[in-house]
């Protein structure tokens, strides 16, 4: 075993042990604990849990790498995956918490009809499943590189650990484990970033100091056949950048595994502050990511520029074993670098390895490399657990007990919830071993689907009393159908040929258009059909105010 492997093993064993201990201490016996942690999670802890739930293998492993190669155009992920929290805090969180039950489909079921509930339960399963596949694969990459375990076994090891704590403790142990996982992943992300910033610029705040290398990075990039780092719209036209950012933001606010977290707070006020703390914890990583991307790319390019292929830095050989880095057989000296294997550059580097390899590329000591590995695993596992909970609750709570066993007791509900979770894990492992595309890309499609299905239905349901069930159902089906159809049209999947995008709109960005289509259809159909029943408008009215009014209000009388 190399020094890096020893440290990686130590950190992974320690962190897994901590997760298991926490999970055991917060195991649950009631359905309410299993689905919403008994509505008893403190605000700041909930914020950290949302952060870990949110920041997936894609955020931790892929994002900085994507930014490194996309430059400015990588901003779609930075803005898209944070801006959605403004929508969540202002448009969804307080109202859904006030209404306060277990799942997202349950809300639309109460607000509209059972049919809408079933459509959204199916949509929730599809969306969460697309997303969880990326997490499983991300976990596998970490294992295969750092411990020389085959990706298949890596995925299985990660799945077994998630299995134990998610099935045992449901939302309660998932939440508290996620608080621990957030701590691990943020430390693992910040330490190397701060160290690299200090070494390269003398200022240990990566967010501020990476401005100093941008000029150098721009000229190095051009020298090695890449685009100018800070120039906008090099890989996508402006309209696509706009739409992808919008789709990711709306998708963030429509993802069931994120929305569900706002059900776990004690109060409506707590759900607002949870959104604040969540974005605070997320921003720590998201403002660091572009700095990591820029520094790592600068180091990488500088390290290989004009170097003969037999004298390359050692990280190239270490990572070549995973097949994620490759040197062109015909090259003697590295004169071009690319992340696209088809480009035929002298050195091809996969986006996904940049963060994991950044300590090695920067020459940082072995314990830090091991810590980053543990952080990557924490990110992948925490998100996977949250998603599996959504799949489990949709299948058992929203479908099985609605149609098959309508009068089940609490004990049976809990048992079926656990069985559904276990089944979901098994399917996720199989799909995680054979993922359809790059980790971050897979995730991007889940967002388009969430954006075009849930978000308009929920927001219109809260802010427009006239919105009715037929409108929402048609809107969701048309919006989701439109989005999926366009994705199938532009992508090569299921044996279909890929067509060129229309007007430069990529399949990642189509969700924004799908959401608009959904909203327009919902409004038009609602207006053409009878208004919803009185008890439904009363329910909408009631969720708009956090608590019953006290007759002696502080400072009242205005």
């Amino acid at each position, binding site marked *: 075993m190399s020094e890096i492997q020893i440290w990686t093993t130590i950190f992974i064993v320690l962190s897994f042990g901590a997760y298991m201990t926490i999970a055991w201490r917060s195991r649950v016996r009631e359905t309410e604990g299993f689905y919403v942690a008994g509505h008893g999670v403190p605000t700041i802890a909930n914020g950290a849990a949302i952060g870990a739930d949110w920041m997936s293998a894609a955020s931790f492993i892929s994002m900085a790498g994507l930014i490194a190669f996309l430059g400015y155009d990588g901003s779609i992920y930075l803005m898209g995956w944070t801006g959605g*929290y403004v929508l969540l805090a202002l448009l969804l969180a307080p109202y859904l918490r006030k209404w306060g039950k277990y799942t997202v489909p349950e809300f639309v079921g109460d607000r509209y009809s059972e049919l809408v509930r079933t459509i959204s339960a199916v949509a929730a399963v599809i969306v969460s499943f697309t997303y969880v596949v990326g997490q499983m694969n991300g976990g596998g990459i970490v294992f295969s590189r750092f411990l020389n375990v085959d990706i298949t076994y890596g995925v299985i090891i990660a799945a077994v650990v998630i299995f134990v704590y998610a099935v045992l403790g449901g939302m309660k142990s998932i939440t508290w484990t996620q608080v621990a996982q957030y701590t691990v992943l943020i430390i693992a992300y910040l330490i190397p970033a701060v160290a690299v910033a200090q070494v390269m610029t003398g200022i240990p705040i990566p967010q501020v100091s990476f*401005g100093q290398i941008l000029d150098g990075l721009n000229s190095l990039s051009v020298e090695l056949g890449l685009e100018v780092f800070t120039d906008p719209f090099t890989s996508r036209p402006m309209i696509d950048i706009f739409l992808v950012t919008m789709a990711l933001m709306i998708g963030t606010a429509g993802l069931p595994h994120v929305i569900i977290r706002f059900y776990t707070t004690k109060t409506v006020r707590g759900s607002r502050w949870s959104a604040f703390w969540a974005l605070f914890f997320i921003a720590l990583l*998201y403002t660091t990511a572009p700095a990591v991307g820029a520094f790592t790319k600068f180091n990488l390019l500088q390290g290989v520029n004009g170097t003969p292929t037999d004298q390359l830095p050692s990280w190239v050989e270490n990572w070549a074993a995973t097949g994620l880095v490759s040197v062109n057989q015909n090259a003697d000296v590295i004169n071009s670098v690319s992340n696209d294997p088809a480009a035929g550059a002298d050195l091809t580097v996969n986006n996904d390895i940049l963060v994991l390899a950044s300590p090695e590329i920067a020459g940082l000591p072995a314990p830090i490399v091991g810590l980053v590995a543990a952080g990557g695993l924490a990110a992948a596992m925490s998100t996977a657990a949250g998603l599996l909970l959504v799949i489990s609750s949709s299948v058992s709570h929203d479908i099985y007990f609605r149609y098959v066993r309508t009068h089940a007791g609490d004990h049976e509900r809990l048992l079926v919830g656990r069985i559904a979770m276990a089944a979901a894990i098994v399917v996720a492992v199989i799909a995680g071993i054979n993922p359809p595309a790059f980790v971050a890309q897979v995730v991007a499609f889940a967002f388009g689907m969430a954006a075009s299905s849930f978000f308009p239905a929920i927001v219109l349901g809260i802010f427009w009393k006239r919105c009715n069930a037929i409108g929402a159902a048609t809107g969701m089906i048309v919006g989701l159908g439109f989005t999926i159809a366009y994705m199938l049209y532009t992508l090569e999947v299921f044996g279909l040929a890929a067509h060129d995008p229309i007007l430069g709109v990529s399949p990642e960005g189509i969700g924004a258009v799908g959401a608009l289509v959904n909203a327009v259809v919902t409004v038009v159909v609602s207006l053409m059909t009878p208004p919803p029943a009185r008890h439904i408008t009363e329910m909408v009215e009631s969720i708009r105010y956090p608590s019953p*009014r006290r007759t002696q209000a*502080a400072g009242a009388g*205005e």
Partner: protein
Amino acid sequence: MADTEDKSPDPPGGNGWRREYWKKNLQLMVILLAIWFAVSFGCGILFVEQLNQITVIGFPLGFWFAQQGSIYVFLLLILAYCLYMDRLDKRFGVYEYDDEPAGGAAEKGGES
């Protein structure tokens, strides 16, 4: 059911406060969302090329808004929302005291 509390009789003066509270809420929402759009989609995407002509401590300004500034603004927007809504809740007597056992029990009463 969590909603039993709303069946309690309305305080004297009817529901006029509700319209007022909701209007204030919507006004704040529109203002904050306008800033949200202007900073991220405006400065970060639509006008990025013009802003990139200006450089601040090494960052082209449009690039900075897209990769750093917009995130800080998002955080401030949510903070402003939380603080303002806390004040609004207090003024209208719908504030929840989650630290006080009495208030917390009343809120949770219907759910457990």
